């Protein structure tokens, strides 16, 4: 089975779970007065769940055939190098780490780390250049967002802000 049909299968499971929620669990907490209304919070989700299950089944069962002609996909799966996949995964992990470190380390520290480690992962080895670029970028972005746009961003780690 091709990747697109596996995905459709996963989406089907998602819609089944969603439909289960809409049909069986949502209406339980509905106050009696709402029950007289022709539309319940679950009405629209029910319609969507039925539609989603039908369409994903349509794809899973292979009713929709891709055109016979050679397809030009955007990225050829077989062309991907293991190297590139490793880099991509490392960058995603880095993004998750950024999410967790943003508060404890403060914006400036975590952004600096994100940008340096990010370019390191991609193979940059000019350390001076790397750190200067990251430091300047972190500072400039913080200044623009916090001072110019007025969106508060905690710049330093919480223990350095003095409560």
């Amino acid at each position, binding site marked *: 089975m091709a990747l697109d049909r596996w995905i459709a299968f996963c989406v089907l499971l998602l819609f089944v779970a969603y439909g289960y929620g809409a049909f069986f669990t949502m209406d339980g907490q509905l106050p009696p007065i709402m029950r007289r209304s022709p539309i319940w919070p679950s009405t629209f989700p029910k319609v969507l769940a039925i539609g989603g299950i039908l369409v994903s089944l349509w794809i899973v069962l292979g009713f929709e055939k891709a055109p016979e002609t050679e397809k030009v996909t955007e990225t050829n799966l077989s062309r991907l190098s293991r190297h590139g996949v490793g880099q991509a995964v490392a960058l995603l992990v880095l993004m*998750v780490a950024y999410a967790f470190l943003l508060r404890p380390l403060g914006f400036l520290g975590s952004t600096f780390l994100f940008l340096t480690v990010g370019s390191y992962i991609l193979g940059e080895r000019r350390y001076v250049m790397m750190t200067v670029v990251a430091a300047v970028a972190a500072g400039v972005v913080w200044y623009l967002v916090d001072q110019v746009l007025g*969106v508060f961003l905690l710049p330093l780690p919480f223990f350095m802000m003095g409560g």
Partner: protein
Amino acid sequence: MLEGLLTGLSTAFTLTNITVVIAGCIIGTLIGMLPGLGPMSIIAIMIPIAITMGDPSTALILLAGVYYGAVFGGSTSSILINAPGVASTVATSFDGYPLTRQGKAGKALTVAAISSFAGGTIGAVLLMVFAPALASVALLFHSSEYFALMVVGLSAIAAFAGTGQIGKAVLMTLLGLILATVGEGVLFNAPRFTMGVMDLQSGFGFITIAMAMFALPEAIHLVLDPARSKTEGGEDSSKITGLRLTRNEATSIAPVVGRQSIQGFFIGVLPGAGATIASFLGYAVERNIASPEEREKFGKGSVKGVAAPESANNAAATGSFVPLLTLGIPGSGTTAILLGALIALNVSPGPRLIVDEPQVFWAVIISMYLGNLVLLVLNLPLIPYIARILAVPRNYLIPFILFFTLMGAYIGQNNATELLILVGFGICATILRFADYPLAPLLIGFILGPMLENNFARAMQLYDGFGFIWERPMTLALLCVAVLLIVLPSYRARRARNRAEGVADGD
């Protein structure tokens, strides 16, 4: 209309707004030039900035400027390094890149800039004429027709996804719609599908979803497929000369630009068609009607081959504003993102926009003229310098793109959980892209979801059930159109396949 124009002029011609449109065009051109970053990602990245500006007109002017800039920047990179940053400029590279190889890059860029300018300007005039008319018709619509109209819009987007893709596009739309039902709705003060997670109480942030669907997968693709960001020959782009056109060339492209601007505009108005189809169709039409000796030149460096897709895609980009501004229904991923931004700014697009907030509507139109002018006047002489951005090494470029997606999601919500949601959806979106699932329908579904449900609920309440579907002929007709849009292409594809195989029975 004159009164409206004056309102727009007075709104757009303030120092702030002129600065904003110039800045937007330049930022859009700069980022749009980078291979792999399309207008959708750029606009998604710019939205938090636009929203914090507060004033809807200014915000929309900024985003519109970024949009034109990005489309223009995309054509620059297709011409100079044969790396279209945007699907809608792929057709430009057919003849633009051969011209560069012949040392006529300057000429190609000039043709592209002038055609874009003409396409955008003619598009803006047509928008000015058609949008108010369409809006006055749309004012007669009731919630049930709105519901049906949105269904038509969504199915048209799916129908244009191409053969073998319609089911996938419909599925993605539905996926977007169910994502939109998460959180507390406007209609019911009860959280739905939050699975007890407090952070989901207010639903998914639309910027987060937009970033996760476009910017993040594009950055990941750049990592996975280094060839995409290769800039071979990029070093030559610093010496671009010979920007001038001969009189002969100018007269030969004038009719092409005129035809393709009008055709492109109307293709852009159709939901789902958009700039990409307009540019390919424009190229194909012009090649077919050209004289035989000129047809020979297409693909080998014809100025007409640059002029046709460029005027068509800019006119279509303008045309796609028609359904957005008059019906509140986005026809493309880009306009869907703009719609999300408008909603975040408390402006509800739709037929009432022209009546209730004329300054927003007309300011956008004026900003289109202004944006096109800025692109022509400012960018043309600056192109040789701007093109140097193509030399930014990917080791720096990619971390920055990722960082900006994170910032965009974070600024909107000030919540680190949003970043985890972003990464999670981003991974899903990357996988979906590998399997050729179109992602724009998901975002459009997500943004239209609440409006679709509201109109559905209102119609249900008025007619005490599903009766509105058959009691209102207009609604029924629209819904039939929606069904036909979905069913007809797959039926025809199936019949064509069966005929080709010589088998009568289905498989």
